[in-house]
């Protein structure tokens, strides 16, 4: 009976946990789930750079921490800049340590974007992971640039009037060796993408959707269900991009052929309660436009 899951579900990763029981993350937190699998895929020779986000809180209280690898907690805007310096130092020492910046969507889309852009432009050898819960979850769900249209947050109680910032296309404009999107509901996909990213030298970027039970207002047990619905309905597209070649992940290809109803994804979450039909139409329009563009790019006709 022992270790069957290691052989069947995740053949490449060892059973070792790098996060000790337990972090102070909310029950059903998908950031916790993502980080667990990212560290399993990265292995012990890894340094984590964490700007202000949920992850800087859920480590525990000094002098204890629940993270079994070195973590640098840095200022909000500086994750990529710190990782850049760290990667340069490791290179000088001749070490192959993985430098992973693990930031929330606020620290990536809004506050950390200039440091990130700079690090990508300099060709820093690091992996930047943005776990996207589509708001500033740590401080009580304020609206971020990543919040989708129509979502209620504490600062947009009537629903956000603006579209979500298209971070992935901003990152793609830097022509990275590797960038990918994933979702917390597919840990095997995350592990595969992290392993692939870490095997490549140069700047890498991973954007992972992280459903958040208190912020998105759904039951804690439904974290995986909501994540899967996001991908199946097409609201979240999963793909990999190596320089200018785009490869769609299987889940998104399936969603393009036979999508789950968008209303199902919106209805399960309290933050989308009371959406007007024209807002739903606008959400659907931008979603379909995104998928159409991705499909064209994957086919090489764009």
């Amino acid at each position, binding site marked *: 009976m022992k270790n069957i899951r290691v052989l*069947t579900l995740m053949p490449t990763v060892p059973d070792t946990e790098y996060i000790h029981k337990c972090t102070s993350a909310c029950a059903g937190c998908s950031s916790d789930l993502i980080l667990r699998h990212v560290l399993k895929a990265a292995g012990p020779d890894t340094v984590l750079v964490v700007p202000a986000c949920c992850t800087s809180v859920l480590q*525990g209280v000094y002098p204890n921490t629940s993270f079994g690898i070195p973590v640098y907690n840095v200022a909000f805007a500086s994750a990529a800049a710190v990782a850049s310096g760290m990667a340069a130092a490791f290179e000088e020492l001749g070490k192959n340590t993985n430098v992973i910046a693990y930031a929330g969507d606020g620290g990536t889309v809004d506050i950390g974007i200039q440091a990130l852009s700079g690090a990508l432009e300099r060709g820093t050898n690091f992996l930047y992971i943005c776990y996207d819960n589509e708001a500033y979850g740590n401080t009580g769900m304020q609206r971020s640039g990543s919040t989708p249209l129509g979502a209620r947050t504490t600062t947009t109680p009537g629903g956000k009037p603006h579209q979500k910032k298209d971070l992935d296309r901003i990152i793609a404009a830097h022509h990275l060796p590797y960038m990918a999107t994933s979702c917390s509901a597919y840990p095997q996909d995350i592990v595969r993408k992290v392993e692939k990213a870490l095997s490549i030298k140069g700047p890498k970027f991973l954007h992972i959707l992280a459903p958040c039970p208190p912020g998105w207002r759904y039951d804690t047990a439904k974290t995986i*269900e909501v994540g899967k619905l996001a991908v199946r309905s097409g609201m979240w597209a999963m793909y990999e991009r190596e320089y200018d070649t785009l490869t769609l992940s299987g889940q998104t290809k399936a969603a393009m052929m036979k999508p789950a109803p968008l209303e199902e994804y919106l209805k399960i979450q309290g933050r989308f309660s009371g959406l007007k039909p024209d807002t739903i139409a606008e959400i659907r329009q931008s979603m379909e436009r995104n998928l159409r563009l991705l499909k064209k790019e994957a086919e090489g006709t764009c």
Partner: protein
Amino acid sequence: MRERLAISRPVEGACGETGTWRVFKPVVDREKCNSCGMCAMYCPDGVIDSEYEIDLIFCKGCGICANECPKKAIAMVREGEES
């Protein structure tokens, strides 16, 4: 004198015994379980080990394991009530 660095050390239970947060606890039906490993893979805190024993000292009771179990072998039972 050597200056001491303010470094946190990794220990189990750095955030306290998070099992006290729980309202519903997962109870595994061994008859139905086919050891697929989904629960352990999806557990955000990794409290399910390779023998599918749930560490109730730290389990926060989110219910993801019960929701994702393909065999419906995990039931969420209110704390203090018998299963």
